[in-house]
């Protein structure tokens, strides 16, 4: 049986490639090897057929790389004359030796090793943790199809540009027909609802959507179908789509759920489909948003659109702002506003600025850590200079020494990287514990340390290793004989100039961080201890929404509200109950519009942003809000009704100062410039300010003008406020029971104390203050270690000099002062640089501060003074230790 003709060619080429694993020398020496392999293959084929050839190939595939690589890395001894250049094999085996030596050398200096590894672990850990957060939030890719063309269509007030609320369904439908920038425009509106199921009732969010919405998001039903246009017709039966999680939890994944009826917001719905979790809407039920009838005029829904391919966001915006117009009776005219869906978090300036400033902080910490490590390595290298000189003298090349330092750096970086990952895990867990609230919270839940983050950490470690490895390694220069001489006489002559430069650099970076941290902290404290202005810990509140299916008219609604209030006041511990709209601090509503002040000489204020609350009689006493002048609302203010020529109003001090700077606000008249509401309001009282959440959204203005009007409007959506007796714990279960007695369909989950709402409102600033505070502490610690290291090293080098000075009569105090002064010089330079940089960078965090300038002198002075004290200590301690030497001992040594 003759082998195929191609066999020898294939065999010899394959073998040639495999042989690359062997040192080139071996290949040259045995150039016949591919031929031998080819011949052997032919022989095998003759004896054992194809199977034997395959066995031979497998053997070669296993053996050649294995033995070849072993020869490369651990070559047999004594093969080569000494004067030829080193082969790769020797280079690698030398590297292995370097690593072994570096490892032993690190083990022998545990203090330095731990300091460096811990420094790196802190820097790398903080970086990895923050990168994980950024990765899960800022960098998260949108899960939607064609996300790059996807936009959210909301509206903003023409007057102020504020808003970001939804247009009416009727407007959306009109715009969809009129505007040609959208390939597709769907709508969705959230609605609170209660689902009655087998085991009881449960509050679930209901999402009313246009029939095509889910399909456009790429959702495919697990079971049944999605919504169809027919479902939206007025005579169609109401249908609902269940999310998978609810289907599993409430119906134990029963497939018979399809076609079954469930009660939702007091109305029967037929389940037609089950869908998998939709990101951000995991627990939501989906029903059809009515697109016809009178309801479309009042119901508001957010538009979710896809731009036509080729239409730019700017072009679409321009069209939407001109053509999509509408008006709200209270807020005034508005126009459409488009926001890209690329990444939900990028839309929030506040969040973005916060996270980016944290990223900058983290980068600074890592840089400080690297500088610090370079510093530690530098002092260490100085100490080992003698050893290196000896190695150089007996023939080690400079490259070899650099390689050794790099090996040491690499080991430290690996240690630091490993521990850094542990630190990162801890940091992420801590951040999840602090719970910053809002959208950041949902993003944080998704934060996991994944492979990419790990790769990032390793890249940072490697970069760090090279960075700090090279600084000291490249410093080793000059004639070996000089170095050897110095080593022999025990005089390390490493200059401290580079050390000083490093200290100045890390000081300036640490100062930037510390000032940032101090500003954030001061800001948080300012918010934290602001008097809420009312009895926050004695007021509970709960939203009451009466479904129109069950309470069809104003009479039944009012009757229910009265009964409910009465029932609640009977609960033990409750002192009184009141209704209000936008009346629960800190969540007052803001409004904008034109205002006319003064009946005799009207003055107009075109774009006025105020907080507006509708309250009942006796509200200020009920809430414990102080009245600076005038009176509370009384029943008579409500009796007049809508036809009365004027209406009573209470305003805050800030509003009085803004519109009546002369101080004659009490008794003055003002009105809104609106078609439907031009009644005059007479100021009957001036109230002290209360805390409110809009400080986050309104550029930090804490004391917005605030206007209180008598509560007369729509009774379907109310806040029920419950005032407790002094020192009573909130009787939440009893209040829930009272609700359940009257109507088990009313949800009571969000019953909350105002104090808790206030605390929740401070989550953002607190989170940032805590994070920056942690960074600041890490930074100042690292900087102190760096200063300490450089001064201690410098002092140790100059011990002999100091001994001579003292032997010649210098007083220890003078020498101490000399050392401290020299140690502090780079620190002072760093302080100046850092202060300048902070002033320049102030704008970055300005938007995160409330009622505070990013260049607040007091904060700067306090931070710089604090840093200086730490720096003096870090200099003084090693300096003092250095001069406490035995003069004779030092002079005699060597």
């Amino acid at each position, binding site marked *: 049986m003759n082998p195929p003709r191609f066999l020898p060619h294939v065999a010899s080429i394959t073998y040639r490639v495999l042989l690359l694993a*062997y040192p080139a020398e071996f290949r*040259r*020496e045995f*150039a016949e090897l591919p031929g*031998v392999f080819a011949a052997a293959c032919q022989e095998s084929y003759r004896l054992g057929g194809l199977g034997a050839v395959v*066995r031979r190939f497998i053997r070669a595939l*296993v053996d*050649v790389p294995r*033995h070849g690589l072993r020869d490369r890395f651990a070559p*047999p001894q004594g093969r080569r004359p000494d004067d030829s250049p080193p082969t790769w094999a020797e280079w690698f085996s030398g590297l292995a030796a370097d690593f072994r030596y570096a490892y032993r050398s690190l083990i022998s200096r545990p203090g330095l090793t731990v300091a460096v590894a811990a420094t790196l672990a802190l820097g790398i850990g903080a970086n990895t943790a923050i990168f994980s957060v950024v990765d899960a939030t800022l960098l998260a890719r949108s899960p939607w199809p064609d996300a790059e063309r996807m936009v959210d269509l909301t509206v903003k007030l023409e007057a102020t540009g504020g808003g970001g609320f939804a247009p009416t369904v009727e407007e959306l439908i009109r715009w969809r027909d009129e505007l040609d920038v959208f390939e597709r425009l769907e709508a969705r509106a959230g609605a609170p609802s209660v689902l009655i199921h087998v085991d009881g009732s449960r509050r679930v969010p209901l999402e009313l959507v246009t029939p095509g919405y889910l399909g456009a998001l790429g959702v495919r039903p697990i079971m049944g179908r999605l919504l169809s246009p027919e479902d939206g017709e007025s005579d169609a039966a109401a249908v609902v789509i269940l999310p998978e999680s609810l289907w599993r939890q409430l119906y134990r994944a029963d497939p018979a759920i399809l076609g079954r009826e469930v009660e939702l917001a007091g109305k029967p719905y037929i389940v037609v489909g089950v869908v998998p979790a939709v990101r951000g809407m995991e627990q939501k039920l989906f029903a059809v948003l009515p697109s016809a009838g009178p309801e479309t005029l009042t119901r508001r829904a957010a538009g979710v659109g896809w731009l036509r391919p080729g239409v730019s966001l700017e072009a679409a915006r321009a069209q939407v702002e001109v053509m999509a117009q509408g008006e709200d009776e209270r807020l005034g005219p508005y126009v459409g506003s488009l926001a890209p869906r690329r990444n939900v978090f990028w839309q929030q300036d506040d969040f973005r600025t916060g996270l980016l400033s944290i990223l900058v902080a983290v980068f600074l910490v890592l840089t400080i850590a690297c500088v610090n490590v370079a510093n530690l390595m530098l002092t260490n290298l100085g100490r080992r200079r003698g050893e290196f000189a000896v190695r150089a003298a007996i023939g080690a090349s400079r490259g070899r020494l650099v390689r050794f330092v790099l090996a040491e750096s690499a080991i430290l970086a690996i240690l630091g990287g490993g521990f850094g990952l542990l630190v990162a895990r801890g940091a992420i867990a801590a951040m999840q514990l602090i719970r910053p609230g809002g959208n950041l919270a949902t993003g944080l839940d998704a934060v996991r340390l994944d492979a990419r983050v790990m790769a990032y950490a390793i890249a940072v470690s490697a970069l760090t290793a090279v960075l700090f490895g090279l600084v000291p390694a490249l410093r080793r220069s000059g004639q070996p004989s000089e170095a050897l001489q110095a080593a022999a006489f025990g005089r390390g002559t490493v200059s401290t100039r580079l050390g000083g430069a490093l200290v100045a650099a890390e000081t300036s970076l640490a100062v930037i961080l510390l000032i940032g941290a101090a500003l954030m902290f001061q800001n948080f404290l300012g918010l934290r201890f602001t008097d809420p202005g009312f009895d926050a810990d004695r007021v509970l509140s709960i939203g009451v929404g009466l479904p129109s299916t069950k309470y069809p008219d104003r009479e039944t609604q009012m009757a229910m509200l009265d009964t409910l209030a009465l029932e609640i006041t009977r609960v033990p511990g409750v002192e009184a109950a009141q209704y209000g709209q936008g009346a629960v601090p800190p969540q007052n509503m803001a409004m904008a519009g034109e205002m006319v002040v003064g009946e005799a000489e009207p003055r107009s204020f075109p774009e006025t942003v105020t907080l507006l609350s509708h309250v009942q009689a006796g509200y200020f006493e009920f809430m414990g809000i102080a009245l600076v002048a005038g009176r509370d609302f009384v029943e008579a203010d409500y009796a007049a009704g809508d036809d009365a020529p004027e209406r009573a109003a209470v305003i805050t001090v800030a509003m009085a100062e803004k519109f009546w700077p002369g101080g004659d606000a009490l008794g003055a008249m003002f009105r809104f410039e609106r078609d439907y509401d031009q009644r005059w309001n007479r100021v009957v009282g001036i109230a002290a300010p209360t805390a409110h959440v809009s400080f986050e959204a309104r550029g930090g203005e804490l004391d917005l003008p605030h206007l209180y009007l008598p509560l007369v409007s729509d009774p379907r959506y109310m806040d029920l406020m419950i005032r407790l007796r002094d020192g009573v714990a909130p009787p939440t279960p009893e209040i829930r029971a009272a609700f359940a007695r009257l109507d088990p369909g009313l949800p009571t989950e969000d019953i909350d104390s105002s104090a808790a709402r206030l605390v929740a409102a401070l989550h953002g600033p607190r989170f940032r203050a805590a994070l920056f505070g942690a960074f600041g502490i890490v930074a100042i610690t690292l900087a102190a270690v760096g200063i300490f290291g450089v001064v201690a090293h410098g002092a140790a080098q100059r011990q002999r000099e100091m001994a001579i000075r003292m032997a010649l009569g210098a007083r220890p105090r003078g020498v101490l002062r000399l050392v401290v002064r020299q140690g502090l010089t780079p620190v002072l330079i760093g302080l100046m640089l850092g202060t300048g940089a902070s002033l320049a960078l102030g704008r970055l965090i300005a938007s995160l501060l409330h009622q505070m300038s990013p260049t607040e002198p007091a904060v700067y002075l306090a931070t710089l003074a604090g840093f200086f004290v730490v720096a003096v200590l870090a200099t003084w301690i090693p300096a003092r230790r250095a001069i406490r030497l035995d003069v004779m001992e030092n002079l005699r040594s060597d």
Partner: protein
Amino acid sequence: MSEAERQLLETLLPLQPRDYLILFALAGGPLHGHGILKAVEEESGGVTLDPANLYRSLKRLERDTLIARSGGQGGGRRQNFELTDVGGEALKAEAQRLVLLADAARARSLVDPKVPA
């Protein structure tokens, strides 16, 4: 054989089985690489041997002066390998050791009596 060669020999014994087979193949006269490969594979009962690995062994045996190379080095020309005196002695010594081991095994009835001595 010189005293130095005898001392070297002692450090090399006992031979590894593969080295023994290589020396054994060369006992019949000089061979080129492929010839040794064939012979060793046959002697060891059809085990497939990687040529490069064989050449590593040859190189080592050459370094230990058990075999010598003849014919042109490099350039793809075939090289022949042959036993040196030391190699011949080593082969003999190893063969004797193996016979003694085999006898000892027979004495303990570890070998099927039908296998001829």
